[in-house]
């Protein structure tokens, strides 16, 4: 679905990505791991258009997207969440959901469209799905850290994306709540058919979830494969996991 070919990106002197190639398969959950500063977030940013890439190509369903602006890429059905959670803090949860609907076919006129009950139902259904229904009229900024992460996730689902890029969805979340989040991610993948591409440091999460894992190190692709393979890959253990 997403194909990166030899993507490089440097910030000043820092070579964040060096000829990175990877593929995200439709309908699957793909993981991306690697030490701090190995360029994982940079890969995400390159895909969704936060900065231009120095070389290489990024294709989404066969379409070259490496030079498109952020909004257009998002409207192709390619969405991401942020490492530092971003929600609309002064709006309530329902409003957060309502504005997150699909923008692919919004005409000039729809800008002033009122809120239909259909969309409202969908929003409430999704809030229920992530366990936030009872908090729906609360200001999003007043939610706790973990709930904000869940809300951001629900907002992404509201948009009906074809693929969702998640940057450390479980960082700073209580281990038990993490389980709930993984469960929902799985369900989003199977029930809604959303392809997932996930950055994680938490092996418990990624190993239990992913179908395919890529490991970056120093901006270069170190290894890729099934979770079991990665877990036992000597290079990955040396560079990232540490001796067990």
């Amino acid at each position: 679905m997403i194909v990166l070919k030899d993507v490089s990106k440097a910030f000043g002197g820092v070579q964040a990505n060096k000829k990175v190639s990877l593929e995200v398969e439709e309908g699957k959950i793909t993981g991306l791991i690697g030490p701090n500063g190995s360029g994982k977030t940079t890969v995400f940013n390159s895909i969704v258009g936060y900065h231009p890439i120095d070389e290489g190509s990024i294709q989404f369903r066969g379409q070259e997207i490496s030079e498109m602006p952020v909004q257009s890429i998002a409207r192709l059905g390619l969405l991401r969440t942020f490492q530092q959670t971003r929600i609309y803090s002064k709006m309530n949860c329902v409003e957060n959901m309502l504005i997150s609907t699909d923008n692919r076919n919004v005409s000039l006129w729809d800008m002033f469209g009122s809120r239909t009950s259909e969309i409202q139902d969908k929003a409430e259904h999704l809030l229920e799905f992530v366990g936030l229904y009872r908090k729906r009229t609360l200001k999003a900024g007043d939610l706790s850290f973990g709930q904000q992460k869940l809300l951001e996730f629900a907002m992404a689902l509201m948009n009906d994306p074809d693929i969702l890029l998640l940057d450390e969805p479980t960082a700073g979340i209580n281990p038990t709540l993490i389980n709930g989040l993984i469960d929902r991610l799985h369900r989003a993948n199977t029930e809604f058919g959303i392809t997932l591409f996930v950055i994680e440091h938490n092996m418990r999460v990624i190993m239990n979830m992913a179908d395919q894992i890529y490991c970056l190190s120093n901006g270069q692709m170190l290894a890729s494969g099934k979770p079991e393979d990665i877990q036992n890959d000597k290079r990955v253990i040396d560079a990232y996991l540490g001796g067990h």
Partner: protein
Amino acid sequence: MWQGIEMLFQHPSVNVKYILDGLFFGSIFALAAYGLALVWGVMNLKNLAQGDLVILGGYFTWYFQSALGWNPILTLPIVMFIMFFFGWAMYALVVKWVIDKDLFTSLLATFGLALVIQQFINLVFGPETQTAVSELGKIKFYLFGGRIVVPEIRVVGVLLCAAVAVALIVFMKRSRTGQAIRATAQDARAAKVMGINTDRVYALTFSINSAICGAAGALVAMMFLVQPFYGITYSIRSFVIVTAAGLGNLPGVITAAFGLGVLEGYANNILGASYQQFIVVFALVVVLVWRMIRLRKARMVLE
């Protein structure tokens, strides 16, 4: 318009004049802009009362000369000293309460402050335009057959601007207080954890800014004139310069200030004096658009 351009070629000394004046006036703008860059960078305060601090400094200078007969150049340190404490008081009374609020709160609060300062000057010193005269000689030199007269006070302005710039750089790099200011600018919360009294740092920063504005004001009184309601032009120029230069860029501030001074001179000549502010602003928009286009290429935004 064509006449103005023609003149530039027929009387080449005019060019020298505009460039020199640009430097002289630019140095005043640079002083006020340093101050703004300082409070903007360290406290994230967009101080709309900047120009009014300048004018206040000018009034002190004028007052010392007209009422007490002191030489305005010699009173410059005294004015800076007084303005330092004035800044401290302003910080404690107003600024302190708005620095951690959002952008507009600080803009508006300092606008309120600007109004109060203007009226304070108006009520205490009266609404008249005032000037201070420094009894210094003049430098003359001859170029292209033309004669160029430079009042010495303008040279003093440039020297002062340079001195303040150097002092500021040294102070920031070397002194402990300067380090504390830099640390606070980079991460206020972390600075607190280091035991830095950020409140004091803010107060000090604002007071230094106020003192620098006072110096600029003294020069304004000696080169141009002061009137209670003239602050806004200096505020706008400071913002234009800092915005154009980008934050934390002292050489940029100086370049932008000189550039603005020269630009104003030429614009006055070619388009006419009534387009002066238009030119200032137009320059700002051009710089912003240009920077934005560059950032757009990098798929980033100006924030």
